[in-house]
């Protein structure tokens, strides 16, 4: 028995002091999504800003990749992960009110969150709505171009309907620009560097876990 125990791989020094926050697959999804969004933003807005290049093929192919990533993410979140981590409940709304009150002068310390705090959940919901809007409208817009996989059929919708689809796509795309800027701000704030490290390397320290999270709400 001792023999078996001694053959068991032991954690490296300091390893036990780490708490896994994002698995490799989650990080891969996050960074692939980030790359797709940046490519889509560049191919959408640089030509509008006067930098002309052949953007359409890069744009639609990246859009299809993003759509596939989102489908995989939804399946994983619903069936293989705990989707309740991102669910916004009444408790989250109360905590969000306390967070806001603290920002506006209240001295009451808000309670520690679970894996994601209320504002992160709200942010995720906002991103989900906007990205799904841009992706769904974008997939419909594919009907207007010839690709190796399908022939264009612009007569599926009336001109008015196409106008609405283009408005949704454009408004959602510009909202994503604002969301990305705000996301970078929160990511680069010094007190959230540990979360950036977690999104790169996967872990936070046990000390950070104890300091920032409620162990009863995020068991790690």
């Amino acid at each position, binding site marked *: 028995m001792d023999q078996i125990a001694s053959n068991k791989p032991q954690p490296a020094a300091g390893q036990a002091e780490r708490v896994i926050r994002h698995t490799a697959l989650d990080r891969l999804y996050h960074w692939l999504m980030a790359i797709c969004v940046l490519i889509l933003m560049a191919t959408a*807005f640089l030509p*509008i800003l006067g930098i002309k290049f052949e953007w359409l093929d890069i744009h639609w192919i990246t859009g299809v990749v993003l759509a596939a990533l989102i489908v995989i993410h939804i399946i994983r979140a619903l069936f293989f992960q705990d989707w309740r981590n991102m669910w916004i409940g009444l408790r989250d709304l109360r905590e969000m009110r306390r967070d806001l009150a*603290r*920002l*506006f*002068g209240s*001295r009451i310390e808000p309670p520690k969150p679970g894996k994601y705090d209320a504002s992160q959940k709200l942010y995720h919901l906002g991103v989900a709505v906007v990205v799904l809007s841009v992706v769904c409208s974008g997939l419909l817009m594919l009907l207007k171009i010839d690709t190796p996989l399908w022939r264009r059929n612009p007569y599926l919708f009336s*001109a*008015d309907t*196409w*106008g*609405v689809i*283009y*408005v949704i*796509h*454009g*408004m959602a795309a*510009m*909202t994503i*620009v*604002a*969301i990305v*800027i*705000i996301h970078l*701000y929160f990511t680069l704030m010094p007190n959230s560097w540990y979360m950036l490290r977690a999104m790169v390397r996967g872990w936070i320290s046990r000390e950070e876990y104890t300091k920032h999270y409620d162990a009863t709400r995020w068991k790690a």
Partner: protein
Amino acid sequence: MEFFRYSRSIYGGSDQLIGASWDLLPWFVGAAVVFIVVHAVLNALAKHRVNQSS
């Protein structure tokens, strides 16, 4: 400032909606910058209050 883009038919008739106006892009960027500045100021004030009380 226009919110939408329209195309005018060469045969006359009403204007056709063709998308959101790209004039709005600086406003979206501006809204993000305003959000960041307001949050940074409020956050700094909140930290200042905490430091004063401790």
